[in-house]
């Protein structure tokens, strides 16, 4: 199995990873960088638990071949609080609106919502629903999640 060396930006830091060329972005983030916030829920790009942001787009990292990440910018759930540890408005809103139960979908949900708010700071409810349409939640019923994104949109400058 041939290794590949990729250099990219991870949560604002320049990094290099040398991993088997068949690894996905998800596996690299979880195993090489030990950032286990992104989860493998299905391994086939359908559940959204693995969602991270690459160059501004929410992507299913379980389907993202690691060689493609060269030169790009990746943000995971571990990178959205600021350096002092203050939670991102989305993280605060998910907590305050009971948008979290078991928490397994949460990192993916927040990353999908963040990709939306970064591009559309004042989304309509339909836009929010579309942005999380690739993220499954078996616990909450989605209502509190949508309300959390709405609250975060109001507080996000």
């Amino acid at each position, binding site marked *: 199995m041939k290794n590949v060396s990729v250099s990219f930006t991870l949560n604002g830091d320049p990094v290099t990873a040398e991993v088997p060329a068949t690894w996905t972005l998800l596996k690299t983030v979880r195993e090489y960088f030990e*950032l*286990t*916030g992104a*989860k493998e829920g299905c391994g086939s790009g359908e559940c959204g638990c693995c969602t991270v942001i690459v160059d501004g787009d929410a992507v299913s990292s379980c389907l993202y071949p690691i060689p493609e990440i060269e030169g790009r910018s990746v943000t995971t*759930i571990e990178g959205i609080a600021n350096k002092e540890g203050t*939670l991102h408005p989305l*993280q605060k809103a998910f907590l305050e609106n009971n948008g*979290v139960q078991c928490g397994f979908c949460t990192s993916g949900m927040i990353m999908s919502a963040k990709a939306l708010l970064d591009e559309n700071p004042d989304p309509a409810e339909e836009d929010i629903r579309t942005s999380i349409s690739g993220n499954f939640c078996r616990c909450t019923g989605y209502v509190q999640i949508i309300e959390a994104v709405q609250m975060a949109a109001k507080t996000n400058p």
Partner: protein
Amino acid sequence: MSDYLYVGKSIPRTIETDKVTGRAVYMNDLKRPGMLYGKILYSRYAHARIKRIDVSKAKKLQGVRAVLTGHDIPDVRVGFIKDQRVLKKDVVRQFRDEVAAVAAISPEIAEEAIHLIDVEYEEIPAVFDPLEAMKEDAPLVHEVDARGRPIRSNILPLPWKFLAAETM
């Protein structure tokens, strides 16, 4: 009515901060020194007799620490009606009946070991529909019950009485 401490208030839960920051540790996030990875070999047939299980090649694979079949474990039965053995050694009764288990030093080696296990099945007729299963000539899912007594029908006489509402 006096003001309550908790009733009528929104009480923040205590562990969710770790979940929104990605710090919460779930089963697959855990790593421990010397840990092993397990994989299961599942049945390829819905209903079949197991004639032979050969784990010799799987056991020899470097990095494999254990390979277990139904022959290696006590005859414990689990399940609601105690109809499930943990690993099946005589008959498999559904796709995804567990036939063997491997423990190895990496998930990739465990997966390779699974592929090295050779199982010889004799397929038998299966039934996939509850109405079909209730027919007199339907293939029996179980031929004996948990105590070894012969079963004659897929319809089990459960010792409870159900009170059902009338349907209009």
